[in-house]
């Protein structure tokens, strides 16, 4: 099972769910050859490519894909001074793609992620599974021991209150990775040969009040429900930290989802992660994060949002305030980050001017 799927072109014609309601956001610095493999699953959809690094380089997009591409010059042009909140020389820049999208749903994937095979050898249409996850409810208030009760062949178990069986809207779907697992640098150094070969056939809702490490490699979300919370922070060039972009977005997103009564799912789909980044480079990027996360996590675990935060933007601004108050003492970086969080919301609202829509109910 430690091989990507081949011959996906031979796959049966796919019914492209949400074809006109979903954008695929891909950050890249090298090339987009990986799209060839995804072609049967991705071609019906619109792509937003966020080109990081040198803007004078031309990124070749395979024929036949409908896309828009933004490099650093475009980001600076579109956002002006607010472009400071978008990271440079880090895949965190992908969140610019979320901001400029006009669709209801986003799927984001890294350019070293390929199509995986399920245990029967069939190529996995990851996008289709994410859509299924997003379109079916989550169950964050009580844990179902048979995992996602809305999947075929499963249901709520004995003892699950009927009043909770409707579930809540799903804001995010977090997929997993076969082959190269998403380990931090120390773990990579200790276990350089470890590969994830375990296909866990489950989707589950992460319970309310529980935080998790959200990986941005294989992620989908409902932009209307939770988009503004998916800010991937200040990473990369000129920043003291890297590889914590998706983590930061994940903690903010989960706190806000818990507050607004929205669900986050994890588990299927799997993609095949082919490239292991250099662990020494990773260590240099992460090492501050490894210390800081000891403070950051209790901060998020204890974060309480006031009842009048009824929109994602209001929740996010409030979180930014709390970050400034409570985390600045850990490092002045958080002061900058808190400001960038506010800038992000301002930029989001500017580019998405329908105004804040109350999303869900405040818990």
């Amino acid at each position, binding site marked *: 099972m430690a091989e990507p799927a081949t011959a996906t072109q031979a796959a049966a014609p796919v019914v492209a769910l949400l074809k006109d309601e979903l954008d695929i956001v891909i950050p890249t610095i090298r090339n987009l050859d990986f799209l060839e493999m995804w072609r049967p699953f991705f071609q019906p959809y619109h792509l937003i490519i966020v080109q990081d690094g040198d803007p004078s380089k031309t990124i070749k997009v395979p024929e036949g894909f409908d896309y828009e591409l933004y490099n650093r010059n475009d980001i600076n042009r579109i956002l002006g001074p607010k472009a400071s909140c978008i990271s440079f020389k880090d895949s965190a820049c992908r969140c610019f793609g979320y901001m400029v999208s006009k669709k209801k749903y986003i799927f984001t994937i890294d350019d070293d992620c390929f199509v995986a095979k399920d245990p029967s050898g069939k190529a996995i249409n990851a996008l289709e599974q994410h859509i299924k996850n997003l379109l079916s409810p989550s169950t964050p208030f009580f844990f179902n021991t048979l995992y996602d009760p809305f999947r075929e062949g499963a249901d709520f178990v004995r003892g699950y209150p009927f*009043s909770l069986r409707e579930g809540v809207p799903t804001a995010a779907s977090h997929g997993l990775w076969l082959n190269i697992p998403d380990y931090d640098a120390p773990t990579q150094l200790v276990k350089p040969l470890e590969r994830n070969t375990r296909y866990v056939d489950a989707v589950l809702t992460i319970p309310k009040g529980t935080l998790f490490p959200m990986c941005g490699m294989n992620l989908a979300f409902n932009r209307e429900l939770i988009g503004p919370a998916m800010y991937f922070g200040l990473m990369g060039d000129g920043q003291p930290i890297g590889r914590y972009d998706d983590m930061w977005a994940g903690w903010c997103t989960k706190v806000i989802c818990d507050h607004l009564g929205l669900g986050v799912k994890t588990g299927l789909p799997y993609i095949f992660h082919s490239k292991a980044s250099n662990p020494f480079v990773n260590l240099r990027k992460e090492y501050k994060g490894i210390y800081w996360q000891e403070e950051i996590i209790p901060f998020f675990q204890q974060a309480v949002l006031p009842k009048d935060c009824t929109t994602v933007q209001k929740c996010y601004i409030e979180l930014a305030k709390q970050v400034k108050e409570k985390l600045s003492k850990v490092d002045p970086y958080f002061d900058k980050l808190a400001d960038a969080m506010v800038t992000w919301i301002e930029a989001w609202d500017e580019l998405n001017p329908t105004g804040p829509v109350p999303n869900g109910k405040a818990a």
Partner: protein
Amino acid sequence: RTLRAGKLTERVLKLFIATGKDEVFSLIQALNIQVTVTPVLPTRALRPDLTSFMNEWRTIFSRFHLIIVKDPDLKEELKIPEGFNLDVYKKPDIDRVVGTSTSTIFSGYSCRYFGYLVSRKKYIISVDDDCYPAKDNKGILVDAVAQHITNLTTPATPFFFNTLYDPFTEGADFVRGYPFSLRSGVQCALSCGLWLNLADYDAPTQALKPEERNSRYVDAVLTVPARTLMPISGINIAFNREVIGPALLPSLRLGGEGKFRWETMEDIWSGMCVKVVCDHLGLGVKTGMPYVWRNDRGDAIASLRKEWEGVKLMEEVVPFFQSVRLSREATTTEDCVAEVANVVKEQLGTKDPMFARAAKAMLDWVKLWKSVGSSTSSPGA
């Protein structure tokens, strides 16, 4: 004599072995004493003929000491095949140990709690007698006992969710973003297994989908996060008796409780207590593998009327347990259970006499545990 007196503990055994004497070793072998922790299997016998059940489990169970508890309401004689190391407890035995007035709490599925009470082993594994060993995705027979023991003897991680599930299993680890200070985990007190074929659905659900069978083998064990509650089924569970024994208890009895699983809620109620206590004491609860194969039994539609009561109850029970907060002073499992019982009495007892009875049963159980169940009560954390 030492064995008969029940005084041969693991520690004493290790001392004997440490002598390095051949006679000691041959004696140990002759008596088939296991050095490793030996689970006890209280098997609730609802049907008299245990032959096929025991034979199906023989290769997995035969190494261990079994406790078979016969439902006091069952009239027929038990049929048990040869070749097992076991103790059987029937109504007269139960009466003798706890008294005839108390023995009524052990009827039906709750007879298993008697087994938990009288066992003196560290770990208990409990499987309903309508379950056989399952096969995994590769067609290999699942050693449910071994998996439960692995779950109980590796740490749990309730304070932060690991997206690759159990980080202590072969081929997995903590993912990027998992705080290092939380990577040593906490002791796992309870291991909740799952079921292939007939899943543990309530009667309305199974009646609505009479043909549905669980065929999905999910290759994962995960820790149930702290403060997250779930329905803990009694069909296939294991626990550390030393640490959490008193918290698995017979207390809630439905008015129309019957002899099929979907006509009971006793395990669900007990499980809510256990999780609250574990969360308070900083202990872990795992769920997932091992799977057992649960045989078809009973008629969901016929059970619908009986179990409706249990289904409605959960609307009260879940929010109640979600709100329970135990005091700082409750540092032992017994104290925690007593506190929960008092809160049940105060807040739920007034709504329905069934809860008042359950609260009293919980307090009685703590007393019973202290007198019959334990040599010493051990603090949880």
